[in-house]
C-alpha cells in the first residue's frame, strides 16, 4: 500500500467533496455523490485486510472532518470502519470486478454507513430534520452510479492494477 499516494488521494477527495460535488447535485443540494464512500469501498475490496481496516477508519475520519453531522465527529469514523472491515473480510466471497457488482456494493455500503451514522448521531444529540431519503437512498445510488467509473483512475494512482501485477509475475522462458 502506497500510503503517501493514499493520503494525497484522501485529501483531494475530501476537498473535492466539500467544494465541487455541489455542482453535481441533482434535485436537491444534498443529493450528490460521496467520493469518500467510493474510496472506502475501493480500498476495502482491493487492499490487504490490515491496510483495509486502517484505510477505512482514516477515510471515516476525513469524512467526519470535512462534513460532520450536527458538529460531531465519530459517527462516520465508526460506521466507515465497521463496514469497511466487514467488506474487506468478504473479499473472497464478493467479486467486485464487474461494474454492476461494484455499484451494488457501493450502494449497499452507503446505505448501511448512512444508517449507522444517523443512529450514532442520535445517541449523542437530537438529530436535525434531514432528508432520510436523500441520505439513505439517493446519495448512495448516485455514488453507486459514479463509483465504477472512478475505480480505474484510482487503481492507476494507487498502482493497484492487478493486470499489471500479472505481467510482472509472468513466467520466464
Amino acid at each position, binding site marked *: 500500500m502506497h500510503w503517501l499516494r493514499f493520503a494525497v488521494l484522501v485529501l483531494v477527495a475530501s*476537498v473535492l467533496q466539500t467544494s465541487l460535488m455541489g455542482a453535481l447535485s441533482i434535485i436537491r443540494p444534498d443529493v450528490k455523490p460521496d467520493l469518500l464512500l467510493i474510496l472506502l469501498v475501493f480500498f476495502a475490496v482491493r487492499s490487504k485486510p490490515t491496510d483495509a481496516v486502517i484505510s477505512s477508519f482514516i477515510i471515516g475520519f476525513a469524512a467526519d472532518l470535512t462534513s460532520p453531522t*450536527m458538529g460531531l465527529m465519530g459517527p462516520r469514523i465508526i460506521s466507515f470502519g465497521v463496514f469497511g472491515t466487514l467488506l474487506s473480510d468478504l473479499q473472497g466471497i464478493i467479486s467486485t470486478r464487474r461494474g454492476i457488482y461494484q455499484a451494488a456494493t457501493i450502494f449497499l455500503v452507503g446505505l448501511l454507513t448512512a444508517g449507522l451514522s444517523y443512529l450514532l448521531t442520535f445517541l449523542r444529540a437530537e438529530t*436535525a430534520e434531514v432528508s432520510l431519503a436523500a441520505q439513505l437512498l439517493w446519495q448512495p445510488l448516485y455514488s453507486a452510479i459514479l463509483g465504477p467509473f472512478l475505480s480505474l483512475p484510482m487503481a492507476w494512482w494507487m498502482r493497484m492494477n492487478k493486470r499489471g501485477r500479472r505481467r510482472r509475475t509472468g513466467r520466464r522462458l
Partner: protein
Amino acid sequence: MLFTWGMLAGLIFLFLVPKDLTGQLQLAYARAFRWPLAAGRGLTLASRTATPPVQDISRKDHKALLTAYGQTRNELANLQAQLQEAHRTIEGLTKLRDRPGWENVPLRPATIIAPADQAHNELIINRGQQDDVAVGQFVISPDDHAITGTISDVSPKGAKVRLITDPASKIAVTIADLNVSGLMEGRGNNTARIPLISTKHKVKKGDPVYARKQPGLDTPVITARVTECKPDADSPLLWDIKVQPVCDVANLSEIAVVISAQLPQ
C-alpha cells in the same frame, strides 16, 4: 487489534471529545484548504447561475470580438476578479448603510468558504478573532438585509456561522407588530419554530419575524417569515408556529458580521 483501536478512537471522538475541539479541528481544515474550497464553491455557484441569451451578431463582429477577448483576458483576469470582489463588498455594505438605523452599525464583510456540515445548517467564513469576530455576534446577508445566523465558533482567522435553522440555534425574536416575543429554535431542513406563543396573539402566515434589538444593533432586522401557524396539538392555548428564513442560504456567497452585537451566553 487494529479494528479495536479504530473503534476506540471513533468512540472517543463521539462521546468524549468536546464539540469545541472538533469545531477547532474543522476550522483548521477549512483554514488550511481555504483557497481550493473557496474556488470550488465559486465554481459550484457559477454552475447554478443561468447564462443570459446571446444576441445574434455578424461573423465579422464575432471574429473581432474573439480576437480582442483573447488579447486582453490574460492581462485583465486577475485584476478584474479582485476589483469585482472589492466592488461587491462595498456595494453590499453600502446598500445596508443606506437604510435608516444602519449608518453606525459596525459590519465586517466575510466570504463563505464552505458549508460546515452535511445538512447545511452551519457555514465556515474567512473572518476570525483577528477581525474582531466573536461568538454570539449576528450574521447578516447584505443582499437580503436579513439575519441568517450567529457566530458559534471562532479561531484566529476563521469562524463558524450557526444558521437560524440549526437545531442548536435559539434567537430571541418578535413577530410582526405584535407585542409578543419568543425564542426561535432551529429545526433543520431549512425551518425553525417559535414555541410558547399564546393563541390570544393574532399570528398569521406570512408575518415577518424580527430579531430582538441587541447592543450595537438598534434596528429590528427581519430574519424569517411565518409559514405555518396552527394551535399546538399538545397545548391548544399555544400556537405551533413554523418559520422559514428569508435568505436563500444555498446560494449565499457573501455575508457581513455585526461586530458589536453579542447574544448573552
